[in-house]
């Protein structure tokens, strides 16, 4: 089974990369020259509070031992204790991750039509004014930072169509309707950033497919034009964009950091920014490790999909 072995190989590589990332994060924050306690508390801290923090973080132990102890904990689902709130990191993290998962799923749902419909219009009307106009719009959107796009959407929706809230606050008691109201604008921002990236590639793929012989055949057989596009061209044009979708998923991991901050949404991204600002090292380590894990998983899945979809690797 060549395919199974190839996938297993990729899995081992992905896990190894994750292990390396865990070491990098820990090394950068806690092993790099300079006293960790001073870096967290700043220069003005008293000797007493620094000594207390050193004790709490076991900074007097060798660095490698501390890393292995932390890694051991992580493997058992224990990310340690938040320095600021003294709660378990996992307890702080879990609801935030759930919020971001909801936002990301919503963004992905919006992303699919936002990417395919403009690409279809452009491909069918290629080199016409509509195609050129949409190319210009995509380029402008592609060049717009997500925090700017989010702020402009906020301005547009809150001033012109005042149905959506400016601040995306939710808590444990929020129901689905409140969640949807709160996440529509951030999800739309993320979806647009992802869609404009995919549209250009999808347009080119579609044009290539529409020129293929089997599409000409279908047309000659008298298959209705609409059916040719939706049933024959689109599925074949989508396969090469798998890679783009994986890259988009990877973008999403970093994108939520900015976009959640723009809308004040209590997700994983805003937690990361807060923990960085407060220098809550255990929380920083856990959030970045999770971000990297999602990124690595996305790339792994794209690799697996590419392997499974590649007919050359199909055996028996």
């Amino acid at each position, binding site marked *: 089974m060549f395919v199974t072995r190839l996938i297993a190989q990729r899995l081992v590589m992905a896990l190894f990369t994750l292990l390396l990332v865990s070491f990098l994060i820990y090394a950068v924050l806690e092993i790099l020259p300079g006293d960790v306690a001073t870096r967290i508390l700043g220069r003005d801290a008293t000797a007493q509070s620094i000594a207390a923090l050193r004790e709490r973080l076991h900074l007097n132990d060798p660095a490698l031992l501390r890393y292995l102890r932390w890694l051991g904990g992580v493997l058992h689902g224990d990310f340690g204790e938040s320095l600021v709130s003294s709660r378990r990191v996992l307890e702080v993290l879990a609801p935030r991750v759930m919020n971001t998962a909801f936002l990301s799923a919503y963004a992905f749902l919006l992303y699919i039509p936002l990417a395919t419909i403009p690409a279809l219009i452009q491909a069918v009307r290629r080199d016409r004014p509509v195609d050129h106009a949409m190319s210009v719009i995509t380029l402008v959107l592609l060049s717009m*930072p997500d925090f*700017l796009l989010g702020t402009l959407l906020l*301005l547009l929706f809150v001033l012109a169509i005042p149905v959506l809230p400016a601040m995306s606050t939710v808590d444990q008691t929020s129901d689905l309707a409140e969640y949807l109201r709160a996440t529509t604008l951030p999800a739309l921002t993320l979806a647009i950033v992802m869609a404009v990236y995919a549209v250009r590639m999808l347009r080119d793929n579609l044009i290539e497919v529409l020129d293929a012989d089997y599409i000409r055949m279908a047309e000659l057989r008298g298959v209705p034009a609409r059916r040719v596009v939706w049933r024959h061209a689109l599925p074949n044009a989508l396969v090469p964009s798998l890679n783009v979708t994986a890259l988009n998923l990877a973008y999403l991991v*970093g994108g939520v*950091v*900015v976009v959640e*901050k723009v809308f004040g949404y209590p997700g994983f991204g805003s937690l*990361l920014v807060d923990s960085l600002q407060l220098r809550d090292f255990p929380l920083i380590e856990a959030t970045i490790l999770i971000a*990297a894990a999602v990124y690595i998983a996305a790339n792994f899945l794209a690799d697996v999909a590419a392997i499974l979809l590649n007919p050359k690797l199909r055996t028996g």
Partner: protein
Amino acid sequence: MSTVERAAAAPSLWTKLAETPLSLRIGAAILFLHLLVAATGPLWAPYGYSQMATGIPLAPASLAHPFGVDQLGRDVFSRVIHGGHIVLLLSLSGTALGLVIGSLIGLLSGYVGGLVDNVVQRLLEALISIPFLVLALLAMVAAGPELSGNPLLVVFVVALVYAPRIARMARTAAIEISTRDFVTIAKLRGESAVSVMRRELLPNATSILLVEFALRAGYAPVLIGSLGFLGFGLRPPTPEWGLMISENRSLVMIAPATVIGPGLALASLVVGLNLFTEGIARILGRTVRLGVQQ
């Protein structure tokens, strides 16, 4: 008669210009405008970048204050003008540093191969696995509070984020070029690895690296802006555009121009750089995929 002959002998500058892709020409024009403003702006900007009481705070945009006045009474238009050279300088130097480090690592790793290459690849992959903004934020915090807000740290962080990604491209190029005959001949001549890299690999990878540089430089203002926006980049009152958007964002409903102004500057710079990148790539016969996702 003679004019026709001359035209046939050497195409005029105008025909040459007409042959360059339209995107390159528009991109170059936008970039030229940005460079001009960045270079001369501080001389003619109506107000200083931290000058207060220039008008009524949060007053709507007017001819005297095209981008409005922020809550501290500073003229946003002047601040945008003063910010130009900061954004350009930091973006270009950060990307250039990343290009030098990245191509050095990539070319060497790809050419030497074997165990060295394997180790370097794993390390680069680990670095790339941390989303670029998250990696930048991590580096900012790891540098400690004393260095935060330092422009040199921003340059270094941009380089750190880009170097692994550029190295990956350079490595692929090096492996591909290494299989060609002229490299084998150079090796048989007894040239050292460094000499082969400098005289054979680098010249042949230039077009790849050039496009890579243009692509990365295009998103460096966004990266720097994002860091400023989140409060991890340059410090106030530096007129960095992302930082300005973040400062004026809370009052965007009252004074939208104070956000739209710096936003327009940032977006137009990136549009210019992106068009330029696309044009350069087309001339060099390469495909390039624009987007923060890369």
